[in-house]
């Protein structure tokens, strides 16, 4: 999952250029924020500062005799992936992923989604610069848990997830993190291409669109990467994985459609609650069945209880993927032309020719 928190401590690399912009943003935040919001921004500043001052240029990590061969190999792979993204995928890293930070924890941030008990409309939060978003991110799990408790008290369904990577949209030079550097090659490629897409294009208040765009570019990029390497076996495995991902998505989308229909009915709360629980249980069983059929270990999706917030988090990332994929096809998979189309039309794309 990806998160775009606001943070106001400058990277040393960007200090001169961006100091004025940062101060302006900080002043705006202080002026607008309530006490609770202020505490949110304080932890965001602290968290981003930790990353900024922990990160070290990749070549420096490679020079250290303490660096293990495994980490060195991953860092080298990551640099090759970033170079590939810049030369072949019409993406620009602008200094991102050229540093490494070991945060000494499993997740860089914790993200909270919320939705009313009988609705799939996500609760949103407003942030300076990036605008309205469907989630709230914290660098400390305890802070995220506090928000979850508060939202549950207000009657919301909630979902708290650990996040391995996030993008500051080019505001800072995002580093490679210990939270994802050990990913298998295909996952690392998808992640880097996904995050760099956000740096190329990001539309305020359009979380679903932004995430779907990043997914489409990441998948295309990963295919091209595997093709360039001539790794047919890995490419076939990747295509199979995408197919399976699509099958799961299809189950979830059907369930979402049924739930939306249910929530639109004037049923009493008790009956609606009963039917909702049954629907979510049925989704859980169907997805489990799919994994069993593939003789594959169930994913993280089944490890947390399903509720509206969990489904909201899923729709955020997947819903517009097919439409954008078709759009890319209409440009003969020319990513530069595809991006130019997106930059011209934004999320209000005309129908594919």
């Amino acid at each position: 999952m990806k998160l775009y928190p606001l943070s106001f401590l400058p990277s040393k690399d960007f200090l001169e250029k961006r100091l004025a912009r940062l101060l302006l943003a900080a002043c705006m935040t202080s002026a607008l924020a309530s006490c609770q919001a202020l505490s949110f921004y304080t932890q965001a500043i602290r968290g981003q500062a930790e990353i900024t001052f922990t990160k070290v240029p990749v070549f420096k990590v490679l020079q250290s005799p303490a660096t293990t061969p495994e980490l060195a190999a991953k860092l080298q792979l990551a640099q090759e992936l970033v170079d590939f993204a810049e030369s072949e995928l019409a993406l620009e890293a602008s200094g991102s992923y050229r540093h490494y930070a070991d945060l000494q924890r499993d997740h860089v941030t914790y993200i909270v989604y919320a939705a009313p008990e009988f609705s799939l409309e996500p609760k949103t939060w407003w942030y300076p610069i990036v605008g309205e978003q469907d989630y709230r991110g914290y660098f400390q799990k305890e802070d995220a848990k506090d928000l979850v408790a508060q939202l549950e008290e207000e009657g919301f369904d909630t979902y708290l997830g650990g996040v391995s990577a996030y993008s500051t949209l080019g505001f800072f030079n995002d580093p490679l993190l210990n939270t994802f550097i050990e990913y298998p090659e295909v996952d690392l490629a998808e992640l880097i291409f996904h995050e760099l897409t956000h740096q190329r294009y990001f539309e305020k208040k359009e979380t679903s669109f932004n995430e779907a765009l990043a997914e489409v570019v990441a998948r295309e990029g990963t295919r091209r990467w595997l093709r360039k390497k001539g790794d047919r076996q890995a490419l076939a495995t990747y295509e199979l994985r995408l197919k399976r991902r699509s099958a799961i998505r299809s189950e979830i989308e059907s369930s979402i459609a049924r739930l939306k229909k249910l929530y639109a009915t004037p049923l009493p709360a008790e009956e609606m609650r009963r039917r909702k629980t049954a629907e979510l249980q049925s989704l859980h069983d169907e997805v489990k069945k799919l994994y069993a059929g593939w003789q594959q270990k169930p994913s993280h999706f089944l490890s947390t209880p399903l509720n509206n917030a969990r489904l909201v988090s899923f729709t955020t990332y997947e819903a517009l993927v097919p439409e954008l994929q078709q759009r890319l096809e209409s440009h003969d998979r020319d990513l530069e032309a595809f991006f130019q189309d997106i930059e011209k039309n934004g999320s209000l794309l005309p129908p594919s020719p």
Partner: protein
Amino acid sequence: MLNTEPLNIHFTIPAKDHLGREEVQGQLRFHAEHIDLHWRMTGNVFTKGPSEMKLVAIPYPAVAEVSLKKRWLRPTELILRLENPELVSEIPGIEVGRMVLIIDAQSKKAIEKVNDLIDFQRSVFLLDETNKRLDAMRAES
């Protein structure tokens, strides 16, 4: 007053690639007659450490240009351009005899004296050359 004692300047020439394959570490030692440029590749976990140290002797007259670049919150750069690029052609990161050396923090004080020292040594050399020519002319006449 100009200090003519030998000066040692430690520097780095950053690599062009992000893996730092061709980063160079070195030391400039300013003698009375010439400059010793000691250098080696920094190396990394892939090369199992640094390469062997090499030495290039640069006579003062070979230095065509010297300048210091100081920037806010950034390391100081010493830019040396040599008349004969071949002297340093083996060192990575140098373009046609133009070396941009990132000065290590430990050499911050010493670097202040480099400009004057090189000017002084070049003047001494030019003076010597002029005297030699004058002596030759006197001998002829």
